[in-house]
């Protein structure tokens, strides 16, 4: 059976068989088709969601961030008395942290917020004021629309200057001429030196702006909040963020930082680390649970289709006993019969699977469109969907093919 083109002949024979029994073949292919479509569809929908989430994280200022935030140290379910003696998260932690791995750290930013009464000619509201330091602006994905950012001396000296988000600018200066005007934060008059670009991100097309609250920002130098709004001599902060593009350096740094801050805080567990990339990975592994569910539902469809196919094949084998007998009489071995039945089943799987891929693409497109997320498909999804179908197609083809190959030639010939 070598150079005689036996495979080609079997394929041709299988194709003829399929065409002659179109209804049966379509039914058989249908099970495969639906299985492949559901695996591919499921994967693609979850891929599309994930891709969108990644884009959101990147727009939020990237994944390469390690946040340090204060928290209440608890003892026996109560805030620890020692907390009072502690100084909390403060500038010293940020400066010490940066010194640990100065070459790997690309930037450190601080945040110190306060609530205050904000008054302009047009509005008078109680608002959150974000005291920012370091490279907070780029690290959080902000960009200036007009004016300028804070200078080093303004940051250091806690100068009375402010940059407004679009919503804040529109609220306090509805005429759109915020730049250069002044505003009162509590009892401090501040000058508006810039405005931020509008932050927009729609996770779903037609959905709400995920970043709307970022347009409410009223940013002043962190030192202004620390010195003039809280009267805090310890220069405590709400959040320190380190940017480390080298993901490998990140986890080592996190450990070192934990040790340092813990020592600074007299071993009080009054802070927490938040590795954005790790959070992302956790979220992704959560996503992979969905993938398993999708895979499972596809597998169930394929198993269901496979069992139906075994039934159909067994029924059709009854009609073809005589044909098998004739082939055996003229010299086909059981192995040859087995191969020809396998070829038929696998051809159905291949064609049904291909149609399933097409349907799966349409399916994914329809669903992602209906939820308003851009469609994102990966080669791995195609591979899995088709691979599963091929594996199950093969598995379920074995029994009928084996049955056919075991027919006795004489009895098969006499079969009516």
């Amino acid at each position, binding site marked *: 059976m070598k150079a005689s*083109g036996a495979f080609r002949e079997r394929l041709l024979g299988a194709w003829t068989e399929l065409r002659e029994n179109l209804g049966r073949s379509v039914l058989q292919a249908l099970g495969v088709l639906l299985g492949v479509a559901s695996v591919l569809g499921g994967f693609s929908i979850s891929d599309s969601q994930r891709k969108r989430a990644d884009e959101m994280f990147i727009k939020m200022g990237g994944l390469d961030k390690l946040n340090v935030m204060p928290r209440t140290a608890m003892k026996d379910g109560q805030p620890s008395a020692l907390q009072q003696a502690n100084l909390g998260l403060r500038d010293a932690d940020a400066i010490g942290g940066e010194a640990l791995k100065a070459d790997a750290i690309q930037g450190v930013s601080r945040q110190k917020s306060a609530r205050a009464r904000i008054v302009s000619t047009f509005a008078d509201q109680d608002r959150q004021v974000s005291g920012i330091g370091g490279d907070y602006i780029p690290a959080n994905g902000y960009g200036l629309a007009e004016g300028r950012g804070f200078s080093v001396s303004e940051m250091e000296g806690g100068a009375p200057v402010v940059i407004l988000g679009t919503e804040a600018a529109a609220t306090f200066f509805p005429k759109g001429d915020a730049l250069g005007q002044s505003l009162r934060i509590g009892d401090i008059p501040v000058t508006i030196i810039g405005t931020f670009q509008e932050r927009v991100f729609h996770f779903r097309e037609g959905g709400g702006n995920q970043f709307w609250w970022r347009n409410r920002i009223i940013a002043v130098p962190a030192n202004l909040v620390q010195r003039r709004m809280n009267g805090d001599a310890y220069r405590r902060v709400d959040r320190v963020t380190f940017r480390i593009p080298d993901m490998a350096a990140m986890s080592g740094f996190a450990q070192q930082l934990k040790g340092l801050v813990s020592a600074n805080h007299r071993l009080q567990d009054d802070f927490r680390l938040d590795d954005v990339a790790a959070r992302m990975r956790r979220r992704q592994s959560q996503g992979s649970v969905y993938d398993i569910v999708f895979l499972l539902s596809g597998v169930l469809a394929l198993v269901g289709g496979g069992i139906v196919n075994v039934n159909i094949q067994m029924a059709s084998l009854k009609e073809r006993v005589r044909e098998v*007998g004739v082939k055996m*009489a*003229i*010299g086909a071995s059981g192995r040859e019969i087995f191969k020809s039945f396998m070829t038929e089943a696998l051809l159905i799987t291949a064609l049904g699977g291909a149609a399933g891929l097409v349907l799966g693409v349409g399916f994914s497109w329809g669903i992602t469109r209906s939820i308003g997320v851009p469609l994102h498909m990966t080669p791995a999804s195609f591979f899995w969907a088709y691979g599963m179908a091929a594996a199950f197609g093969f598995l379920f083809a074995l029994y009928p093919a084996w049955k056919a190959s075991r027919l006795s030639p004489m009895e098969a010939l006499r079969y009516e």
Partner: protein
Amino acid sequence: MKTTRGTDAPIIETLGLTKVYGANGAAVHALRGVDLSVQQGEFVALVGPSGSGKSTLMAILGCLDLPTAGTYTLDGHAVQGLSGGELARIRNEKVGFVFQSYNLLPKASIVRNVELPMLYAGVGRKERRERALALLEKVGIADKADKLPATLSGGQKQRVAVARALANAPALLLADEPTGALDSKTGAEVLELFQELHRQGNTLLLVTHDPHIAALAERRVEIRDGVVAAGGEWEASHVQAGSRTAP
């Protein structure tokens, strides 16, 4: 060389061939010790009433089935104890079947039907096609090569079956009531084809219940109750007078 007979080893040589169906109480003894030998180039008619065991004998001689006991040597190959795959190979290379109901594959064209045994034998595509066309030429229906079997008359179908049986130049041509489904005129034509094949040196074993057809053969082997009742061995005296004329 196929014309020499009685001198070489026989094509068919059986000794004490026994076939039992079922087991114990319900056992049916279809063959009870058949001794038969057929020389190269012989034209033998296998006759016997229904239930005599001739179908069973035919199945064993055609390697479709194995005997329960006894030995069978086909063209020098001991058949007993062979695996299914080895039997398939012997059927493919040594035996050509012609059935009463033609048994062509309905979905394959005429030429593909004839090619099939060569495909199983591993003959290349080009050679397969050439040989199949030559065989169809030989049986006189080369013009139908690309048609499907359903479009042919009974006589034509049987000619295709003969061409297919000859595909791998078998040592033995086995025909089971080859004219049973044909009217007498086409039947006679098909028989004429068999006689022609015999003249060309093929070894023929024809199963029939029709004494007129059996009369065409050189030798009648009669099976009764699972044993050879007459004609088990070739002898010069077995050659019937006027065996070359159609009934």
